[in-house]
């Protein structure tokens, strides 16, 4: 059974600092997704990573995928309060079938 593990699960950081969220998964897959969820809201797609070595950046967020290590990272640069949310990674377990297995989520709080 595929397992997707994120760490840390909780992260409190100051504005202006950099940090990385890690996503490890237990089976072969080259399709990994990052989502953001605000309290009481749905999931907002951030990044779609489709191959080994893929790197994508949007604003202060950058995501990468290493399929050989079964590891994805979400790096936050110079954090701002608006980035406070829960971040989920998800792995497509069926090669494009869009059957996603999610991690537990990382609750990120950015303090002024």
């Amino acid at each position, binding site marked *: 059974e595929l397992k997707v593990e994120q760490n840390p699960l909780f992260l409190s950081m100051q504005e202006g600092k950099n940090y990385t969220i890690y996503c490890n998964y237990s089976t072969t897959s080259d399709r990994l997704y990052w989502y953001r969820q605000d309290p009481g809201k749905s999931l907002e797609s951030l990044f779609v990573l489709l191959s080994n070595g893929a790197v994508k950046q949007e604003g202060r967020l950058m995501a990468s995928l290493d399929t050989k290590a079964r590891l994805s990272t979400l790096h936050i640069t110079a954090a701002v309060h608006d980035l406070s949310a829960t971040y989920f990674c998800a792995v497509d377990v069926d090669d494009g079938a*869009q059957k996603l297995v999610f991690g537990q989520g990382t609750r990120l709080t950015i303090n002024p």
Partner: protein
Amino acid sequence: DAGVTQSPTHLIKTRGQQVTLRCSPKSGHDTVSWYQQALGQGPQFIFQYYEEEERQRGNFPDRFSGHQFPNYSSELNVNALLLGDSALYLCASSLLGANEQFFGPGTRLTVL
């Protein structure tokens, strides 16, 4: 262009009752997936519908069933509700084989 829509927004039921949740996919999408998100957890895949048939299923009991209509909209039915069925139910739509799915706002189900 309307995105994925779900109804109702909130629902309160008692144990043993039955519930039907509805989802309209994003325009042009033909595939609908349903996820259950318990409080503080990542979403879990329930099942996926394409061409009015269940194409993929997660590890959920038969109490969970669904349907897809010719206009691609979908319903999720849950029978014999348990307290543990209380969750946010998310619908996601995509084109079959596409690399991304879009999530609706969710239906929050509370079972008393």
